[in-house]
């Protein structure tokens, strides 16, 4: 579904990604992990056309540079810090729906899914971070894109917010969507991803199934899966 070859990014004279290859099969959930500055967010930003790069990226066979509209139509993007183009929750989703050419009937449906129907007409800047993240997820889901690109989706949430969002994302992943997320949280990765790609200094240093790779990164104690997260929250 996603094919990245020889991805090289230089920002401000510093090499951020070096000749990175990555493949993501349809319906697969992969997590990019690694220390700060490893290049996780950079990969996602290249994927949605925010950064200049060398190499190639294609989504379902569509090269993102040759046909940015066609490729980005297949992606739902949730940035680390939510951003909205209109004042109210409903307005923000309506704008994105129009931009993506999606039926406006989907707007109340996705607001319902993320539990924000009662807040549809409220101003987004009065929302808690958890509500903003859920609204950002609803915007990413408009048009039901087959690939979700999530940049540290729970990074700025409290434990309750993390649990709600991880549960919601888990349900969405079960629908057969391809998921690519960056994360620092072992619990989130265990709950959402089936595969881990470990980055360090812009290179892939390890990749494989969650159980194998997470044990080598965090040790067996933290490779707990969703139950581990729920226990921690409880």
């Amino acid at each position: 579904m996603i094919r990245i070859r020889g991805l090289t990014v230089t920002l401000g004279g510093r090499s951020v990604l070096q000749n990175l290859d990555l493949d993501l099969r349809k319906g697969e959930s992969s997590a990019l992990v690694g220390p700060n500055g490893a290049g996780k967010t950079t990969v996602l930003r290249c994927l949605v056309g925010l950064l200049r790069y060398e190499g190639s990226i294609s989504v379902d066979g569509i090269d993102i540079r040759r046909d940015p509209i066609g490729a980005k139509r297949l992606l739902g993007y949730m940035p680390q810090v939510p951003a909205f183009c209109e004042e109210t929750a409903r307005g923000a989703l309506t704008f994105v729906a129009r931009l993506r050419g999606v039926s406006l009937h989907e707007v109340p449906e996705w607001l319902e899914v993320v539990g924000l129907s009662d807040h549809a007409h409220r101003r987004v800047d009065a929302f808690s971070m958890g509500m903003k993240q859920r609204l950002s997820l609803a915007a990413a889901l408009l048009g039901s894109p087959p690939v979700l690109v999530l940049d540290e989706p729970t990074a700025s949430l409290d434990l309750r917010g993390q649990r709600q969002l991880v549960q919601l994302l888990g349900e969405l992943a079960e629908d057969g969507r391809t998921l690519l997320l960056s994360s620092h949280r072992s619990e989130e990765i265990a709950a959402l991803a089936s595969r881990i790609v470990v980055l360090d200094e812009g290179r892939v240093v390890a990749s494989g199934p969650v159980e194998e790779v997470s044990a080598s990164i965090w040790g067996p104690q933290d490779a707990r899966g969703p139950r581990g997260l729920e226990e921690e929250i409880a």
Partner: protein
Amino acid sequence: MRVRILYMLSAREVRVSVRSRWTLVGAVSFTVLAVAVAQLGMAGAERWGVATLDRTSAALLNLVLLFVPLLTLPLGASSFCGEAEDGTLPYLVAQPVTRGEVFFGKLMGLLSAMSLSLLIGFGAAAAVLGTQGGVSVGAFAAMAAGAWLLGVVTTTLGVFLAVAARSRARALAAAVGAWLVLVFLCDFGVLALAASQTLGPGALFGISLANPLQATKTLSALAISERLEILGPVGVHAVRELGRPTLAALLCGTLAAWTLLSSGSAFLLFRRENLT
């Protein structure tokens, strides 16, 4: 580029500018300014005769030319940088749109917001002055048209500064710097060259033409009055050498060149920009 997307993005830009009160502030400022300009012109006309109306309007046109760039340069400068910093611009670019659609959609929106502000401002002023009568419609319309043309140039220049500066603070500082250069430093430079007596009136006119403020002022003055002396000696020389139609076309071409150069350069930079 898809017209539907351009329309959506430009309409959003207008809404953002209305919400930020920029349109209101701009409209009120232009109204006050336009009424003041016309009232002063009318007062002069009552006291000294109709001829003074044109002269007063031309003199007060300078005030409009000071004010329009002061409002529109920051409008362009803050738009792209502000949204790049709060994450809205990267979010827009991440949607199924091209960078060209985002850039030109936003630019069209900014120009629409500026035009709306001027339309309300000068429209309100025209309504106020229309009830009193005695105002020169031609002079008023020429001033409004000159302000709009200058607004187009300085808004696109502001957008160029925003994309080149890459941060809101730097872009706003550059906008203030550009305003100082256009309004004061260019004139000082021309004065210094004139004082050095090394350049003839033709060369001086060519240099001053490069300043869009000077080009707008001369163009408006040409439209406001048949009397050549309000253009100053260099302007008189240009009219005599080129004739009114050629001079007007040259001035319009200068303003168009400024707009195309600013927006084209800004787009080339924006197309290659990393949005982080």
